[in-house]
């Protein structure tokens, strides 16, 4: 059942990404050139809704469907890794015009060529897996 929910939530997210044009390379250049509020409005209001809902869930001790208290652990701080990794991802985001979610959505939108980008991204993950201990974190 959980797998069906995961699938449905993914379908919902993928549909939103496409209809919001967040998956568009054109939109990503427009964002980095500061020529439209569209992407900033989306990211900003998504954070506002996310933050408000986490606060509410904690405030009222909400439980998940499986009965556990909802208390997501924050991501650990690794200043150098966050910054250097972030910069490298940023380069890729502007080149491909896609972050990981949109990569999968674009394949679904008929851009089979983005499978090459996904394979390349997997190679990037493998490279990180091998170099991890040598990189500053």
């Amino acid at each position: 059942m959980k797998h069906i929910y995961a699938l449905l939530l993914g379908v919902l997210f993928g549909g939103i990404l496409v209809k919001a044009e967040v998956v568009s390379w054109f939109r990503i250049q427009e964002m980095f050139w500061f020529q439209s509020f569209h992407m900033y409005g989306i990211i900003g209001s998504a954070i506002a809704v996310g933050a408000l809902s986490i606060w509410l869930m904690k405030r009222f001790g909400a439980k998940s469907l499986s009965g556990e208290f909802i208390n997501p652990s924050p991501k650990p701080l690794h200043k150098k890794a966050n910054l250097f990794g972030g910069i490298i991802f940023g380069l890729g985001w502007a080149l491909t015009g896609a972050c990981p979610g949109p990569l999968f959505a674009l394949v679904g939108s008929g851009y089979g060529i983005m499978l090459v980008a996904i394979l390349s991204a997997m190679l990037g993950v493998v490279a990180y897996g091998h170099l991890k201990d040598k990189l500053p974190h």
Partner: protein
Amino acid sequence: MSSQLISGPWPWYIAGPAIGLMVPLLLFVLNKSFGVSSSLKHLCAMCAISNARFFKYDWKKETWNLIFVFGIFLGAVLVAEYVPSDSLVGISDATAEKLSGMGITDFTGLMPEQLFSFSHVLSPATLICIVLGGFFVGFGTRYAGGCTSGHAIMGLSQFSLGSLVAVIGFFIGGLFVSWIVLPSILSLI
């Protein structure tokens, strides 16, 4: 107007809150933190393409994440199949003009055909954007510990300092490419 609401791009004040709602939905339904990029790692672990210690973990426990990204793919398929969409993305005139000046002539679809199509797969500009760009997406998200979903939305929703640092990094890298590198890449078309 009503057909434009369906076929046109959803405005930010609909799309943004809808994406933000993925956070409580995933927490409530699956008790999982919103994030996409770790799926790339789980795909590598599933395919056993590397024997590095980084991939020695039980990826089956993260099956939900792989199903979630399959859902993202499927959602896009369903939109392409059943929801009418404008042939042009609703970017500003300024962006279209700037891209025209750099050699982009075809604005139909979600991505420029001149860069993102199999017929141009061996051209240098395409290789840089897809192969190098894809590599950076995979390497960078794992190094930073998340992507736009995990850091920008889930992380900043929790006021995580690491996520703020990562998002600043996203913009340093992205601004550098869009402002400094992209004109040279497009001149290769």
